[in-house]
């Protein structure tokens, strides 16, 4: 496998596996992310700080007081040469989502019109999409989740919203996302989950991780309110949403 090393100043470099979006490339990225984690746990890669996986590359940050690019890059090369696991361990995650309340899905009708479908067909397309979390970024816990049904591809809104409510479920391009905070946003809002994707009261404040396989499960407003109350109170049993 050939990778390219790109300079990010004197405290980081990027290992680029490819320049397109594909599950194979992302799998390699996540495998190196995991291999570096294991090597560090074994006391190797001294002076390295952390890795930042994206859909197609892995940024490696380091402390130039403790190591150097000249020392670190060959160590990463050696890890790749040893062979990366082809299938990283993944979780299967189910996200409950309410599509039925118009407040939750203000863009559902427009998405249906622009994709020449009924709102019900848009929801079905979202439910049957096999999603994978490619990367987290932009804000803590915000996941770029690829794998949307091709019939639903649309560019981002030409006018981003100033305020998107927390836990909104949205689509744009070939992806879906869930807003971890109230924030500005330009994606099409088609539902809302009662979950909080970022909650600093939890030991692991960020729920999703790169590599997670993900599907949505349709819930009604009553179920939404019940789960939302549990999420609010911090009593929700998150383990029921995950299978290894």
């Amino acid at each position, binding site marked *: 496998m050939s990778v390219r090393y790109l*300079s990010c100043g004197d405290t980081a470099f990027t290992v680029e596996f490819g320049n397109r979006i594909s599950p194979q490339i992302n799998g390699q990225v996540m495998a190196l992310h995991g291999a570096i984690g294991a090597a560090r746990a074994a006391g190797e890669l001294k002076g390295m700080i*952390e890795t930042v996986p*994206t859909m197609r590359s892995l940024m490696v940050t380091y402390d130039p007081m403790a190591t150097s690019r000249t020392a670190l890059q060959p160590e990463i090369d050696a890890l790749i040469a040893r062979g990366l696991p082809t299938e990283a361990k993944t979780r299967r995650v189910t996200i409950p989502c309410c599509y039925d309340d118009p407040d939750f899905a203000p863009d559902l009708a427009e998405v249906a019109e622009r994709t020449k479908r009924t709102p019900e067909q848009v929801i079905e397309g979202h439910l049957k999409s096999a999603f994978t979390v490619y990367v987290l*970024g932009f804000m*803590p816990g915000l996941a770029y989740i690829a794998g949307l049904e091709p019939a639903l591809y649309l560019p981002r809104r030409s006018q981003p919203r100033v305020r998107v409510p927390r836990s909104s479920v949205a689509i744009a391009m070939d992806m879906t996302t869930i807003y971890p905070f109230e924030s500005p946003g330009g994606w099409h809002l088609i539902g809302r989950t009662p979950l909080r994707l970022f909650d*600093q009261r939890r030991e692991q404040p960020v729920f999703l991780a790169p590599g997670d396989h993900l599907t949505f499960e349709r819930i009604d407003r009553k179920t939404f309110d019940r789960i939302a109350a549990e999420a609010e109170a911090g009593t929700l049993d998150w383990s029921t949403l995950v299978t290894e």
Partner: protein
Amino acid sequence: MTAALKVIRPGLFDTLQDKGRTGYMALGMPTAGAMDRIGLTLANALAGNPPGTAGIEIGVMGPDLLVEADSVRVALAGPLSPTLIESPDAPPKPIDSDRSHLLKRGQVLRVGMVEGSSTAYLAVAGGFALPVFMGSLSTYARAGIGGFEGRKLQAGDSLPLKLDHAPAGGERKLAAPFDYGSGPIRIVWGPQDESFSEKGRATFIGSDYRVSKEADRMGIRFEGPTIEHAVAVEKGGADIISDGIGPGAIQVPGAGLPIVLLSDRQTVGGYPKIATVASVDLPRLGRLLPGQTVRFAAVTVEEAEKLRREQEARLARAAADLQPARPAGGIDLARLYEENLIDGVVYERAPV
């Protein structure tokens, strides 16, 4: 009774910061952390703290802080003109920055304006007794985490102190102001210098760029000549598949103007990054004010690493080579004699 510093008048943008929240960028968590690590390091040295202790980053104008502890040692680092109000009806008395001060219960430290820089630092001996989140006290205000309730300081905030009185020992000052360096801001090309034409790269390092009003902890937007992408912007020349954003990354969106990304930067992004500021010069970026002008000059990764190591060695010497400082209201005999010899007059502020 809990020892605390109480904010009786807020500054403009004061946040608790340490060296940053590393280890969680893979979860989309920005590192945050001090914009000027040199200033924070010096403030901690003056306060007698380990270098990574969280202090208050003063943004443009600092707060008025009431001492609600038997005593506290505070240290200020940076171009400040602080004053001390010793009792409720006393006039504010000018005190020096770049040194520590022993403050007593009921006194008010008026941190005042930062002059000629956008940031300065305040450290307290022993540090603040605030909850650590993901290994750091750094405030990341966009997500409301870290620091004091995840936000900038407001009137009425009571910042708990780890120590209820100042540790023994005298006050200390810097031997000399730290030299941050001058001349062009050093950059390393990449990660996406290939996304720019040769002409675009020449424009970037051959032109003056002015700090716009859009400058904050996330980054600085510069104004100046536009940088040409290798592929026309309408054909996607300013879009890449998102990749990681390191500290000091310089992204150039379609409009062709550079944005340097700093402490509160997002972890990943989809604009090409022409170059990255060498870590030696990041503290200078963290001090820039709107209207100031910079030039960029390219160095190699190896040169950038070497420059950083030299700077850290110099910083370690500055932090170790502190001088005794006159306690507020006390007599500094050494200074008195020295200035008598030089000036032939008694130092006017020394009490009789």
